[in-house]
């Protein structure tokens, strides 16, 4: 399949065109703006639709074949987060807080990116495994928890070494440092509770359960809202995303060349690894692409809300701008066709044994 042709065709889909319109509107300083209530409603709607579809699919296919892809996704997400951290900290020379915040932003998944991927596949007439919606839900908090845990460890280590360097008997200083420790350490269980009870996870898991219970007959009565309106709703939502991304284009200069390169190269690398691993696990053509997209996407709606509390020292302008301003447009316009092409190449190879060989060579 011709990658360039596919990218070209992808740009001319309504979803991407709406996104570009949003960017243009923001650049020419138009007063075009979504009403607040709608921009809050649309992510909930999209997650509900994804969840319902996932639930319906899982009813048809059962839970058993979803366990291994899910565990693999969690493992990959953790490895990628650590990998991002090393790159950012040592090559990018970011401070420890920004490194962890960015690492987890890119290790986490983007629900909006996921819905664009689904509509891209729909447009191409390709099916994907519905249980990936459940993987999306499980992956959401994973890399945040890891990053927060590691940040806490690093902070308490720093404080310990500071304490040791202080002369004995300076009670006042000791009190100060322990006060600092209390402030800079974030309570993991609190973060865990917050991210699991966050609206994204609740609506997603809730709708998976509802979809599973109602089945296809029950879904018929609501399919006009959750099926036929889906792509249109994404188009409207992407108009909004385009406006927000367009307003941030100026900030891209501030994040620096390294982070710009990082936010394009890392998703590409993660996404292609994801596609290959998913193919090796036996996912379908579309399923492998969606799995790759899960690995490639960065979180920009959940991340600020979680990270601002968990790692308040990190600069939100860095992780929001790079995830929304660079990675998201790149993912939906260019990386989706690339991953679909990679997925169709590896799916056309003969038999699963060859696939493993292919993967082995690639990883070496």
């Amino acid at each position: 399949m011709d990658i360039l042709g596919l990218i070209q065709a992808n740009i001319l889909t309504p979803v991407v065109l709406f996104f570009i319109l949003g960017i243009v509107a923001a650049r020419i300083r138009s007063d075009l703006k979504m009403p607040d209530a709608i921009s809050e409603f649309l992510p909930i709607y999209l997650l509900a639709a994804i969840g319902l579809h996932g639930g319906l699919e899982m009813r048809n296919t059962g839970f058993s074949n979803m366990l291994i892809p899910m565990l693999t996704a969690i493992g990959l997400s953790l490895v990628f987060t650590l990998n991002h951290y090393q790159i950012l900290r040592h090559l990018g020379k970011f401070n420890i807080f920004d490194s962890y915040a960015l690492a987890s932003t890119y290790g986490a998944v983007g629900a909006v990116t996921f819905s664009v991927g689904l509509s891209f596949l729909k447009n191409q007439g390709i099916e994907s495994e519905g249980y990936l919606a459940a993987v999306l839900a499980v992956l959401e908090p994973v890399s945040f928890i890891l990053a927060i845990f590691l940040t806490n460890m690093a902070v308490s280590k720093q404080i310990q070494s500071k304490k040791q360097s202080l002369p004995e008997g300076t009670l006042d200083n000791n009190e100060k440092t322990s006060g600092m420790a209390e402030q800079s350490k974030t309570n993991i269980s609190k973060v865990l509770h917050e991210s699991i009870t966050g609206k994204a996870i609740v609506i997603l898991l809730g709708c998976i359960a509802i979809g599973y219970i109602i089945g296809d007959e029950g879904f018929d009565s609501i399919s006009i809202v959750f099926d036929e309106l889906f792509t249109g709703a994404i188009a409207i939502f992407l108009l909004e995303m385009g406006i927000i991304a367009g307003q941030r284009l100026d900030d891209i200069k501030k994040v620096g060349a390294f982070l710009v390169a990082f936010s394009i190269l890392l998703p590409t690398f993660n996404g292609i690894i994801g596609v290959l691993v998913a193919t090796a696990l036996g996912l379908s053509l579309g399923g492998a692409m969606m799995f790759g997209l899960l690995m490639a996407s960065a979180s920009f709606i959940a991340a600020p809300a979680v990270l601002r509390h968990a790692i308040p020292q990190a600069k939100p302008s860095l992780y929001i701008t790079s995830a929304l301003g660079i990675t998201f447009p790149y993912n939906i316009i260019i990386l989706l066709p690339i991953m679909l092409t990679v997925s169709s190449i590896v799916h056309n190879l003969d038999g699963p044994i060859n696939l493993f060989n292919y993967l082995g060579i690639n990883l070496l």
Partner: protein
Amino acid sequence: MKLFDVKLLTITCEILAQKNILEILNKHGITGYTLYEVDGNGSKGIRGKGFKNEKNVKIEIISTETRLKDIVEEITRSLFSDFAIILYLSDIQVLRPEKFI
């Protein structure tokens, strides 16, 4: 009509700092406050465009000077370095001072 002197503390901050501030108020025994979402511009750029998470909120608290100064001290110490916050104290007069102690 007799009016009594008390203080008004006004805090404008990013919406993601709201929870931390309310926790501090709660710790100092403040049960009454007014809170509203606002837009604005400042050193961190135009706020309140796009994401809800990027909005600002304004919190108003009426109480005695000593109590408000303790709160200001704690906010300054624990939140100023990481969050966008503007706060100020002003003199106001109320009718029923017992409500604001």
